[in-house]
């Protein structure tokens, strides 16, 4: 069976994961063997078969569009790695030239 061709560096970029370059080869080998295995699905004829996205036969579950207060703000903020003024989550600059803090 042909070995799958996977660009691990590119996929890791899509996934926002820093991977040490020395791990690329091992990860590629693992992924390729799995991708080769899942390629056996090619032999299944799915002509006219609808995809199943979900096991529960539910659609359009509605509720009133009403705002409620979870009361969890302070507890949520306690998990933040860094805060500004005790009430905002501190993040690195998103746009160049922006003021932080």
């Amino acid at each position, binding site marked *: 069976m042909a070995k799958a061709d996977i660009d691990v560096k590119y996929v890791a970029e*899509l996934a926002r994961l820093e991977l040490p370059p020395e791990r690329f080869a091992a990860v590629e080998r693992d992924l390729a063997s*799995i991708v080769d295995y899942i390629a056996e699905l090619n032999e299944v004829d*799915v002509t006219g*078969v*609808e995809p199943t996205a979900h096991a*529960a036969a539910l659609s359009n579950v509605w509720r009133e569009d009403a705002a409620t207060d979870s009361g969890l703000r302070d507890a949520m903020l306690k*998990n933040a790695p860094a805060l500004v003024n005790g009430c905002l989550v501190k993040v690195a*600059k998103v746009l160049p030239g922006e003021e932080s803090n």
Partner: protein
Amino acid sequence: MADTLDRKTVHELAAGLAEKRWSSVEIVKDCLDAVRTRDKEIHAFLKFDADDALREAALSDERRAAGKALSAYDGIPVGIKDNIAVRDTTVSCASKLLENVVSPYDATAVAKLRARGFIPFGRLNMDEFAMGSSCENSAFGRTMNPRDTSRVPGGSSGGSAAAVAADLVPAALGSDTGGSIRQPAAFCGVVGLKPTYGRVSRFGLVAFASSLDQIGPLAKDVIDAGIILDTVSGKDEKDSTCLPLDPASSSAAAMEGAERRALDGLVFGMPKEYFSGPLAPGVAKIMEQTVAQIRSMGGKIVDVSLPHTKYAVAVYYIIATAEASANLARFDAVRYGRRIDGADLVDTYFKSRGAGFGQEVIRRILLGTYVLSSGYYDAYYLKAQKVRTLIRRDFAEAYKQCDLLLTPVTPAPAFKFGEKSDPLQMYLSDIFTIALNLSGQCGISVPAGTDEATGMPVGVQFLAPELEENRLLRAAAAFEAVRG
């Protein structure tokens, strides 16, 4: 040795509480003693809060003394897998990335346990983000199988299964995405139930693969599994995929089955595809004994076919990893989690995620990202969803000929640590459990004997159509009662 815990079930503990043979404080103290002593060599628990558990137990005893017990089970502790939120407690999913994240709220399943007086107890070890079949993928050390500490407890709910098997807690919650309740239950010799998809709210369960994940019990017997299912099931406005149904009433069905000890013409289908691959001799022997026992109890055995079985693992590892790559994208260490500052925001994502996730989680995120990436989506993800439809149809066809399905849980008993180092070999060991998550139906793993070669427990799996938990538990409890 813990007096109140030793092999005692939830319903036995409840009877003892009612008869004042013991108090909730005594039960919790026994749990604490057991965890402090015997869990040293098993490592089922990542952590526990003794003061909180004792406080809850004292409150329970006060309620009971005042005639205000919340249910017959008020004051009984239940262990909680580390991916299910308990308020003011860490919910780390056995991951470094979430090591110190504290949940501000209870998962709905936990809130429902509390509403009947159960005491959520401790954080149970697991494969990181529920990705694994051996508990070897925990960032905080592996859990050992209580029957043989050189062997894995199974996974991903390995801590839950080991804790129940070792009498550290009377019952536990786990989660099952591809067999993560049933497989460790079989490896450790306890009962594990995966309810129908949508039976139990997933609110507060950290999502791995949202269309497959389901919370369920690990317990000492089928009746207890029913009691926990009845407690945690039912509609929840916080999870729109949770079915708008009343809570299950399966414990009554299980009690009926245990009392009747007969199968009254129930037809059990055995999928021939499940017996075409390699099966350890000990597992094959116990399947034969199970068939004989079912027949002697008045059950009928028929051969059925699930023709797309051989594709289930491939479909599963596409769908589960695709969903995981999307679900785990939220862990960016901005609002919570262990942040490693980089040169800019995007670099912070890369560094925090790269350092925070373990190898198996990274492997699955990458696989999921790959199968969803431009140019591959139709070939992998869409194709897998279509084959998932065929797998669901297989089950629907099979249930035209039988009431329940009977299968092994795993091809072999618990393996040794390090024995399955190749990821694909590990994935293939889930062959008998994952189709059920793709179909969305319910299934239970029940201890059925001991493998002579290894001395390890072996389970059998009963499967039933969606929302047929009563049929499932009635039959499983009858089987269990006769097997003893």
